[in-house]
């Protein structure tokens, strides 16, 4: 059984309900950050107050963020020593995927000791929620999310799909 906890939203009080005070409070918070950062960056420029941290904007794409080691990024399929995919098309990842964005078609592998391999392997990044379950489920360590590629945007939905070739050679830009 899944345990559920019922949480009720706290009711709005009088000041929140008359709306305007909340708007001004929001403006106050925004301006506070703005002026604080403005002042601190100016100070940093003159070599002052270095021990106080100011908010940072990364100027993507000229600069890129350094991702934590375990962050989940675009998928790739790993290789056997001979370069063929490790994946045996068991469809565990497809089965576990909560977004149903993986579609695999299996076929016979010429080597009966491997038996099975993917004929096609598609991941629709437009649907993927980057949960990493596929990686967890894989019994062959065939799928990983460690490419550090985060620029998955595309101009059309079909272009969001990765096929077997792109997954095996993840450097190709999506």
């Amino acid at each position, binding site marked *: 059984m899944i345990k559920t906890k019922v949480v009720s939203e706290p009711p709005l009080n009088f000041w929140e309900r008359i709306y305007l005070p909340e708007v001004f409070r929001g403006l106050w918070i925004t301006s506070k950050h703005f002026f604080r950062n403005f002042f601190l960056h100016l100070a940093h420029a003159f070599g002052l107050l270095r021990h106080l941290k100011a908010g940072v904007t990364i100027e993507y794409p000229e600069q890129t963020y350094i991702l934590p080691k375990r962050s989940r990024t675009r998928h790739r399929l790993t290789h056997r020593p001979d370069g063929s995919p490790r994946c045996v098309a068991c469809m*565990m990842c497809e089965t576990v995927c909560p977004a149903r964005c993986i579609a695999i078609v299996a076929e*016979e592998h010429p080597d009966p000791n491997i038996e099975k391999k993917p004929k096609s392997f598609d991941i629709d990044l437009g649907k993927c929620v980057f949960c990493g379950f596929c990686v967890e489920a894989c019994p062959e360590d065939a799928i990983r999310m460690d490419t550090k590629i985060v620029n998955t945007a595309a101009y059309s939905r079909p272009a969001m799909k990765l096929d077997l070739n792109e997954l095996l050679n993840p450097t190709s830009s999506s």
Partner: protein
Amino acid sequence: MPTLKIDEKEVTVPPGTTLIRAAKELGIEIPYYCWHPGLSVAGNCRMCLVEVDKMPKPQISCHIQCQDGMVVRTQSETVKKLREHVLEFLLVNHPLDCPVCDQAGECGLQDYYMKHGLYDSRLNENKVKKGQKAVPIGPTVMLDNERCILCSRCVRFTDEISKSHEFGIFNRGDHSEIGLYPGEELNNKYSGNVVDICPVGALTDRDFRFKCRVWYLKKTESICPGCARGCNITIETSHDRPTGVENERVMRLKPRFNDEVNDWWICDSGRYGYHSIDQNRILTPLVREGTAAAKESNWKDALKQACVSFQNLMAQNKEQIAILLSPMMTNEEIYLAHKLFVETLQLSRVLLLGVHPNGDQDDLLIRSDKHPNRMGAEWLGLIEGKEVTQKLVSEIEKGLIQGLFLFGQDIVSQFQSERLNGALNQMRLSLFIGSNYNQTVSSARMILPGASYAEKDGTFTNFEGRVQRIRKALFPLGESRSELEIIQSFAAQLGLDLPSQTSEDIFLELAGSVPKFRGMTYDTIGHEGVRPA
């Protein structure tokens, strides 16, 4: 009649009943691999061990017979430990390649490991590797010796049921392995059944291999239309994700237990005969002018055109119209067609014609009549007569018939007649209603795409008079429609008042008026079918 106690529950069974059956009756589940209700008892897997009071050692419940006053325990700590250890033992040489194994998801080893195993394996020794992996042992079956647990079900099936004696167990002890006798090939008419009874992935189906994972399959109960036996089957489909075969929705057929019809089995031609559901299908109404290639049309125009020609013919002379109903049609379709053409339109030439030639027959399942519903047609008053058919064919050839309705029958290839071909082409209205392309489709003037048996509801009556249901597993392919719908829309186009009913409504009406079907409903037919009271 011995009375005994299993897990504190008392049960009285006929003498000679085995413990495993008595427990089943009580709803107590005892795990087993080698036992199969349809085969002899081998007693070699040892999964079904239970404790019996006053017996010094645990007993295999598939073999031991119930005695009066027995006290049996199936859930004691000892029994649980035993199951765990037996399972561990069975898996000693098992490769555990579930990721590439087609059985995964319906595998006895997986299921029982989760239910009765859940141990940490203590095996440090190397596994004994047996034979090659993935060896085709016949046109339908693939053998993987590593996965075999030597339950001998396949051996017993080929010895006792198909009586073709291909399988044997060779070598001894740890090196025992399943195999075919030298020079043999597993190609009997029932070979596919060994895949069903193999509790593990040692025998897998070459036709199904890697097409789809079993947990993606949607299952619909149905009846095999391959012969008059009417074996109970399950149609297993997948149509919302890509599979190993493009443009096919049916992945496989499996037999469904019915001890009145087919027990646990089906023949291979039934099992692999499903490709016609998705292959070679007529997808749109077609209209042909003269001998030219047929042109795609739409339902509205085609029906209108058919009706205009039909009404002209009716106005001229009813005798030049012939309607050929088929024993491939369901009871509902035959009934409705009969109601329209005979009762309402008063046509005299409404005949039954089955075009599948008589085939082989055996003592197990296969019947020589390759039509699923000849008995039903008979009950509805349609009996096929050779002479009548011959007379009609020669009349068609002479051009005396100007309006012909065919319900799926490929008469051109059946009668092998060039003149028939030409006659169909010259006819004012030769209307073919059916699901698949054939030679007759290439000469008929008008073709309306019908549904396959997997795409509609209805009933068939098998040769023993058992009425059984087929169920809609898929939507009709392309623009095809069920025959009931076609008959109804044709009647509507003629301006007749034939109410639009579901097949269930029609069956109820039929059961009310045809004596043989009296009292039957879709509910009473249920999963197993019924015979007339």
